[in-house]
């Protein structure tokens, strides 16, 4: 019969061998990871040998106590060994793997300790199991529930990223309706068979999980892949429109909307500024140095336009002294829509020049930005 210690160490050894093989494929380099895992294999194999020879350090031959119930089988040596391997792998791969291993090892050790203690609490196996439950269930249930919920939410998010926008909305409505109907059903039928309820919930969870895996392997929908590649969230385009997938909800940012310095309005080919506090439209806006200033561009004209802030020149390659136009702009804005623009200007415009807001395609209309 193999001893517990042997099972633990041989488990670590076997998993480490698997990790070594995987690392050779995944990391495509042997240097650090290979040496570390090989060392781990050697050490744990040695310890496994010692454990089996010495029967876990038991020097006297104990006579089995027939009055004691046999201890139950334990999965915690296996889980701990997986955790240790993750720890080792994490050291050479990523912090995420390392901390996952740490959590697994700590959790398994706690479980293992409490189980060992409870198995010696009395001669009654049922009582021992109850003692273990009373200590660990208050921890296990919330943790497992959170993990389960996390897995379901993550799976669902993969589904939403994979399907197109309209399908996503429908799916959301459908799932919400199913949850609502199921909730109503459970309330109206309190004596519903418990197994049936569990089966329905489990089936739903497994369904979402499986679809989530399928969606993750399919990948995100095309427009999101393109958007990520173009980095359109930076909103720094001023030349020809490069992205057709800009974030149309950028202006919906609540904090920005609630604190606008000026709204720049384009109507009938005229550009005006409505500045907080001024009762009349302005053709210049005084903004503070070194302070972020929030603008909203409101397009009331028929075509799509964007607002461009011309902030003079900026150096691009020191010490060559080369400069380029310093432009900041909104995305193209459709009729009736708004886009936000946040400017921070640290210095006044050089003498003889000025900072201006303009709209390409609308000639002769500018708003001067005055920085005292």
């Amino acid at each position, binding site marked *: 019969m193999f001893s517990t210690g042997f099972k633990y160490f041989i488990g670590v050894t076997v998993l480490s061998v698997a990790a070594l093989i995987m690392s050779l494929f995944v990391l495509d380099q042997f240097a650090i990871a290979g040496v570390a895992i090989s060392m781990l294999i050697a050490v744990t194999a040695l310890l496994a040998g010692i454990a089996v020879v010495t029967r876990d350090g038991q020097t006297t031959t104990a006579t089995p106590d027939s009055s004691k119930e046999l201890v139950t089988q334990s999965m915690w040596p296996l889980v701990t060994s997986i955790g240790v391997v993750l720890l080792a792998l994490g050291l050479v791969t990523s912090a995420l793997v390392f901390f996952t291993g740490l959590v697994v090892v700590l959790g398994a050790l706690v479980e293992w300790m409490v189980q060992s203690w409870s198995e010696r609490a009395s001669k009654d196996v049922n009582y021992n199991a109850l003692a273990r439950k009373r200590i660990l269930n208050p921890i296990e249930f919330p943790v497992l529930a959170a993990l389960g919920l996390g897995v379901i939410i993550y799976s669902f998010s993969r589904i939403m990223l994979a399907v197109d926008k309209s399908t996503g909305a429908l799916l959301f409505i459908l799932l919400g309706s199913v949850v609502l109907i199921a909730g109503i059903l459970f309330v109206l039928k309190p004596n519903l068979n418990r197994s049936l309820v569990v089966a329905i919930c489990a089936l739903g969870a497994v369904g979402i999980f499986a679809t989530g895996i399928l969606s993750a392997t399919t990948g995100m929908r095309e427009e999101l892949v393109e958007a990520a590649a173009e980095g359109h969230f930076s909103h720094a385009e001023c030349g020809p429109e490069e992205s057709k997938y800009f974030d149309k909800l950028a202006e919906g940012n609540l904090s920005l909307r609630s*604190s*606008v310095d000026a709204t720049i309005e384009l109507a009938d080919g005229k550009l005006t500024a409505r500045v907080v*506090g001024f009762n009349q439209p302005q053709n210049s*806006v*005084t903004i503070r140095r070194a302070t*972020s200033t929030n603008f909203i561009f409101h397009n009331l004209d028929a075509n799509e336009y964007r607002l461009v802030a011309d902030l003079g020149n900026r150096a691009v390659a020191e010490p060559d002294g080369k400069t380029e136009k310093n432009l900041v702009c909104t995305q193209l804005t459709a009729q009736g829509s708004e886009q936000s623009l946040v400017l921070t200007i640290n210095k006044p415009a050089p003498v003889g020049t000025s900072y201006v807001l303009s709209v390409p395609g609308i000639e002769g209309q500018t708003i001067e930005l005055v920085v*005292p």
Partner: protein
Amino acid sequence: MNHSQRHRNLKNQLASVSLVVVKKYRKISGVALASMLASSCATNAPQDTWQPKGPNAKLIDDLQQPVFAVAGIIGLIVAVAVVYTVIKYKDRGQPIPEQTHGKPALEITLTIIPALILAVVAVFTFGAIFKLAKTDDTEMIINVTGQQWWWEYDYPVQNEFGITQPIISSGQLVMPVGTKVLLRETSRDVIHSYWIPALNGKRDAVPGRVQTLRLEADAPGIFAGQCTEFCGLSHANMRMEAIALSKADFAKWVSNQQAKYVAPAKDSLAQQGEAVFLNQCVRCHQVNGLMRADGTPVIAAPDENVWSGAAPNLSHLMSRNTFAGATFDLLSKQCRDEVWGASSDEIGAKYLAGVSEDCLNQKDLRSWLRNAPEMKPMYANPTQLAATGGKYRGMPYLALSEDDITKLVAYLLTLK
């Protein structure tokens, strides 16, 4: 000795100790109480919230006076009831009276009366809040920007007031009387709060937000204020003053603020001071119109040296009465008293006279230039600037020689 007796003995002992403490500190308590009462009679209390000097502050005052009276009467009734109960039902060994629970009529009455009082207060409070939040009747705009530990004021172009180019100032807010001024407040670093008690309530200056505050003064005068949101080391030194001038005087002030830079006379001490200024101070402080020797205009770069990105613009410094966040006076005590003590009719002329050489508070200005962090606590230790990426919060020690300080003071005196 049973539990009840032990309890009674303990109470008696505590009462004896309390009596001894009260007797021992009777004099101190008396002095403290007298001081508290006497302080309410102070006449020199520039930040007194009970002396409104403008319609917005009056609106608040009209609300707080009756509320304070009602709250005071209720407080008095409660206090008298508590004292009466404590004395009348003091434990004298009498048996514990019968305990009762629930008197619906009394409970409902005691709920409805406060609710009614609060409802009436709420009606007037909401009315006042909406009136104070109005912006559509604004006559003048001033941008107010807080940073550690001073306030910047900039006046956007407003032709109706003769402001044809933006004016930028600090420390003292200058405004015309009888004019609905709207402050557009924000902050460059942490949250500050702007409060001139005589003119209106407080308004927080929050980074990334623009908040408005109405100000209006009935008559010319100087009104003191204080940052009322803890904002770091020198929060207590972040002061402000609002100067209300008659419309004619305000026009003169505007005209002076827009006047072109006048370079110091050739070969004067002030000209040498200008050279020191160009060498040391322009890294952070802007003086509009100041030129370098090669004829290029000087643009200060506080964004490269100061965490908040700004330092006070010193154009027309000597038209102000204070410096370093209104912490110190530019005027000597005698001259300052003359300005602060002037009548409404005279204050404009006295303020517009600015700071002359005779009236300059040389001592504080020289000390400031010698070692600013010693005068006002600031994060100005060059070895401890890691948290701000090597940038200062406040003016650092510049190691100026006494000779340079003399030249600088002569130059600053020309910035009228």
